[in-house]
């Protein structure tokens, strides 16, 4: 009998399709296109302890087979989330993952304590933000820093499984996966966006006001697949894979490389039904092959 359910750190998803943070708001907008309960899970927009205005425009630029964004974490703040969106999402039959970000370790701890009392099912740690107290290098670069922020959040938010979202802008992502695991992460998600820049040769200026941005979309898939496989061979905790997924076969590729579930991000902009369609196609595939989707995880056969 076929099965599409997956379980990550004790949380059951009706299917392995989760919408990626920052591409799906708090679910309300896409709920106007289809019932978001058709999804396995939803990752919220990145939340910060205080409301954040974010970067001036432009915040988005197209690239070949992808896009760059630099929103700068615009969000209403965690308190507003808890009063409004947390309750709205709690009513829906879909796993809710609260994505949190900070610019200091204390920020992460403070927001984690608040989320600990929320109705969300899990927490995703965005550690690609600059650590303002330590020279602005992102929390997600050095393994020791990945471990520190993960364990601090884990302590501050004991009620929720913690997913550490790893940055691909490192020499060895497996080291950071291990660091997250050592820090007590219940799962990891990868890849966050690749750092990039788009330039207007006429104005000689970067297209994004923030100059740099994060690249996502189908163009990054090969990088993401390799990193998921590298991490799968480095840690025991479950992996949520993302990076350029636009079809159910992409999902199969990520799961074969070791992902237990996946996130769909940029594709939502291209096709508002995208995440839902992928979930449907995946359901058809497992039925036709009468398989348990979990049996795919990490079954990559290396050539040798």
């Amino acid at each position: 009998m076929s099965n599409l359910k997956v379980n990550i750190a004790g949380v059951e998803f009706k299917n392995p399709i989760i919408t990626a943070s920052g591409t799906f708001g708090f679910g309300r907008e896409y709920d106007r296109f289809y019932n978001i309960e058709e999804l396995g899970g939803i990752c919220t927009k990145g939340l910060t302890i205080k409301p954040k205005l974010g970067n001036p425009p432009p915040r988005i630029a197209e690239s070949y087979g992808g896009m760059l964004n630099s929103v700068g974490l615009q969000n209403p703040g965690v308190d507003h989330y808890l009063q409004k969106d947390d309750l709205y999402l709690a009513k829906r039959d879909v796993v809710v993952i609260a994505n949190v970000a900070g610019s200091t370790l204390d920020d992460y701890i403070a927001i984690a304590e608040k989320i600990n009392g929320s109705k969300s099912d899990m927490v995703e740690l965005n550690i690609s933000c600059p650590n303002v107290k330590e020279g602005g290098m992102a929390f997600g670069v050095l393994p020791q820093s990945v471990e520190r922020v993960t364990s601090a959040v884990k302590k501050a938010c004991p009620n929720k499984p913690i997913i550490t979202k790893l940055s691909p802008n490192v020499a060895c992502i497996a080291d950071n996966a291990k660091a997250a695991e050592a820090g007590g992460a219940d799962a990891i998600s990868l890849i966050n966006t690749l750092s990039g820049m788009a330039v207007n040769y006429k104005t000689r200026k970067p297209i994004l006001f923030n100059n740099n941005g994060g690249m996502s979309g189908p163009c990054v898939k090969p990088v993401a697949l390799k990193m998921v496989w590298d991490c799968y061979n480095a840690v025991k905790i479950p992996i949520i894979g993302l990076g350029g997924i636009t079809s159910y076969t992409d999902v199969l590729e990520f799961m074969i490389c070791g992902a237990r579930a996946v996130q769909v991000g940029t594709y939502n902009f291209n096709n508002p039904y995208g995440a839902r369609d992928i979930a449907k196609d995946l359901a058809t595939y497992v039925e036709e092959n009468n398989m348990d989707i979990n049996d795919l995880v990490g079954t990559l056969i290396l050539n040798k």
Partner: protein
Amino acid sequence: MASLKDRIGVIKLNQKVAKDIYKMVLQFDDMPDDIKGGQFAHVKLNDKSHILRRPFCICDYDISAKTITLCYAVVGDGTKVLSSYEVGEKLQVMLPLGNGFTPDKNVKKVVLLGGGMGSAVLPAIPTSNPELEYYTYLGFANKEKVVLEEEMAKVSKQLTVATDDGSYGKKGFVTNILAEDMAKLKPDVVFCCGPEVMYKALKKALEPFDVPIIVSLEARMGCGIGACLVCNCKVKRAGEEETYVRVCVEGPVMKLSEVVL
């Protein structure tokens, strides 16, 4: 909130109407019946190397013919690809999106002011508000860039076309030409669409006249429905802090007095 839909539009026309400017007519089996002037359509390109949709204002529409008209300039690779599409080709289109223009009850006399391609927003406004009186001012860089004159002539009590270099119509910036006419026109509202520099000039030019100015903003967009927060625009509302709003939802039509330029 109302439900949204991604629709399939069939290209009925995709024709060059001026230098680097094209007019496209799209027909929809499931044509929406709630379009307002000032709203936009979010168009997906069939060329797979382009991931993002392109937002285009709905230049005009015809509920009975189930068509919308887009008027776009070929400025980048995306619009270049769009201009290459042939009649019969199908495009995925989300529409109508954005707030659109909703005149107050007391409004009778409307000035429509278009700067360059911004003029493409104007034709749909009389279509959705046929009861109002329109005085239209269109400004272009030069003769080669003049568009939509005929369309606007049909729906305007008065139409003035100007070019910066005087190669067609009156010579000079259309905002100044409008300013000169303001005293006798006494419009209830001025609706304008053009580049940001035009809005700055307009603000100054119409300062002496106590008239509400409504503008339509352009922005690079992601989702087009308010989820991704990339098409932000800074606004300052009376008694509020400066903040960002979403051009795709709170806009694209806004009070110029609230927009932080």
